[in-house]
């Protein structure tokens, strides 16, 4: 049986869970630990933590949070953001992470994938590809939260990533990310059909129909989801934000819970919609 994984993705900046559009404009939505606990207890198949400021500081600072999660959440945890060396990977695993997600380091030096896969096992190494569609219709890979141009075409890169031994690929549509317009089906199916390792779709879902579509038409093996479930979480429960010292908390303070095209939904609702569309998943 092929079961689609629904992965809760948390973008983390310092003490905050943040959410942007096109990976830009990071609004604070609450404390990551509150979200993680809720998702673990309510149907997440995996957790994915992305340290969004790690590239800037050239270090991943989530160690404490990873350990805290690992002690209480017994589902796979993937950690990404600023992972550059074998030692960085070791630190994450030692802290309790199960998989690491690399992007910049892999593109700058594909051998790093091989080295890491040999050392820690292929299935421990996830490579992220951040894709932006160009004028001529081609998708090119970017690094550093969709900010730095590499000129590398995504399918070529995905095949290379597989050849170098990565266990999984997460394919992010920077164009769709945070917009609620749906996953980029063309991008996802191109990548997923082009490699034989699992591909996780990321970036864009806003309606329940988007999820099944990404699997049946987009051929995704797993789905990463953020906005839809985060806005759902804050609709019904609020993190205590009074002590926040950094980050854009205007949105939270406003008491709003909806944003644009995003229809908030829980993991349960998402999985049920998959099930109803004939997509098998863990329910």
């Amino acid at each position, binding site marked *: 049986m092929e079961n689609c994984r629904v992965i809760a993705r948390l973008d983390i900046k310092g003490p905050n869970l943040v959410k942007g*559009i096109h990976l830009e*404009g990071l609004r604070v939505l609450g404390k990551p630990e509150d979200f993680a606990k809720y998702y673990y207890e309510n149907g997440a198949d995996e957790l994915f933590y992305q340290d969004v*400021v790690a590239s*800037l500081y050239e270090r991943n600072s989530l160690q404490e949070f990873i350990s805290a999660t690992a002690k209480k959440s017994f589902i796979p945890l993937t950690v990404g953001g600023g992972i550059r060396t074998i030692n960085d990977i070791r630190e994450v695993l030692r802290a309790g992470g199960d998989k690491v997600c690399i992007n910049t380091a892999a593109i700058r030096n594909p051998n790093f994938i091989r080295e890491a896969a040999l050392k820690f096992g292929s299935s421990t190494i996830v490579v992220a590809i951040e894709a*932006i569609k160009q004028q001529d219709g081609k998708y090119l890979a970017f690094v550093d939260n969709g900010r730095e*141009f590499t000129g590398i075409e995504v399918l070529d890169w995905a095949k290379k990533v597989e050849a170098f031994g990565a266990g999984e690929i997460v394919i992010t549509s920077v164009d769709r990310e945070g917009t609620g317009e749906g996953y980029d089906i063309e991008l996802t199916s191109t990548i997923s059909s082009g490699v034989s390792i699992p591909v996780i779709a990321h970036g864009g879902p806003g309606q329940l129909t988007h999820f099944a579509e990404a699997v049946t038409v987009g051929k995704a093996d797993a789905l990463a989801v953020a906005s839809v479930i985060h806005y759902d979480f804050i609709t019904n429960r609020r993190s205590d934000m009074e002590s926040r010292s950094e980050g*854009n908390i205007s949105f939270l303070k406003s008491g709003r819970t909806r944003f*644009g095209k995003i229809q908030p939904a829980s993991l349960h609702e998402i999985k049920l919609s998959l099930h109803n569309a004939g997509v098998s998943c863990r329910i």
Partner: protein
Amino acid sequence: MKQELEVKYGLPRAVKFCKKCVMSNQRPVSEVEFKHNIATRKKTMAFDAEGICDACRANEQKERIDWKKREDELLKLLDQYRKNDGSYDCLVPGSGGKDSAFQAHILKYKYGMNPLTVTWPPILYTEYGYQNWKNWIDIGGFDNISFRRNGRVMKLLTKLAIENLLHPFQTFILGQKNLGPKLAAKFGIPLVFYGENEAEYGNPIADNSSSLRDKSFHTFNNIDELYLGGVSVRELREKYNVQLSDLMAFLPADAKELEQANIQVHYLGYYLRWTPQEVYYYAVENTGFKARPFRTQGTYSKYNSIDDMIDDLHYYTTHIKFGIGRATYDASQEIRNHHITREEGQALVKKFDGEFPDKYFNEIMDYIEMKPDVFHQLCDSFRSPHLWKQENGSWKLRHTVKEDGTDD
């Protein structure tokens, strides 16, 4: 004996950085543009005894504002001017960027006004910038007048501004500032809204009829002594064959017209709390605004001022002249809004400030018919020795906000 370093433009000799944000004391504040030539000594932003800059202090004041009260003031103002006969009751200058998108939309759809939007188009539109402008009108839903000025003159003045002042945007900014009141006078729209107000804190009124008249060129005793692009009007006429009529687009409104129109120019940012990031979200949600599909060179952001190719170059020149690049401007603003910490701001400045904007550079050079080498030489001649040091063939800042400059 140690040679004292030359200090250009009348900038402060000692370089200091604000303790709260990442701005430096080399930052110039408002120019009297018509008198701006190469000999002009710059007035720079003040730092107080605690080493905090004016902008941060002004922002602190913002925290204490009763925004409900301010909004009530706005409602009163709008009630006075609102028209119900279908005619325009206010004018919003803008280009469809996040700020003007927010202004026009909120005035029309929340406060029930009937704005006319007016656009002084970019010198060189970016594709996504143009699309944002179109979406503003087509998705946001506004009437718009775009005033395209004489292209030959615009090109010439831009080139002159670069050659003489290393200020690609000088004439553009002039025209942009003057368009609103001019068209307001012509259309008989008494209320004009600018957006955010960083400098003149505490005063909602940017201009009224009398202050506008004061800025009108009729107050200049001798037109020939006006400077545009660092060149006097006389020289423009005698050397470049540009007549006064060719320059009208850049000059302020006619005094008589202003008198009849009785215009008031207000800052919307006085009445409504302006959080740039939230304004971005607002624009995305309501006027089809999309961020730049790639990071802006020289900074980390993707949604501030992205419709003019020359904008990127403009910030490169501020880095040359004042040691202040775009990342510094963006980060300072975000620190003031508590979106990022100073530590993060420092890292961002170190990473991106002064990055050369090569994406559109050649296109710009072609436009103004200047050789790239000439531009780079020009830049070097504009570097103030008190800010820059040449080390191993490359230029380095003597002082940086991360305290890793050559002289730190």
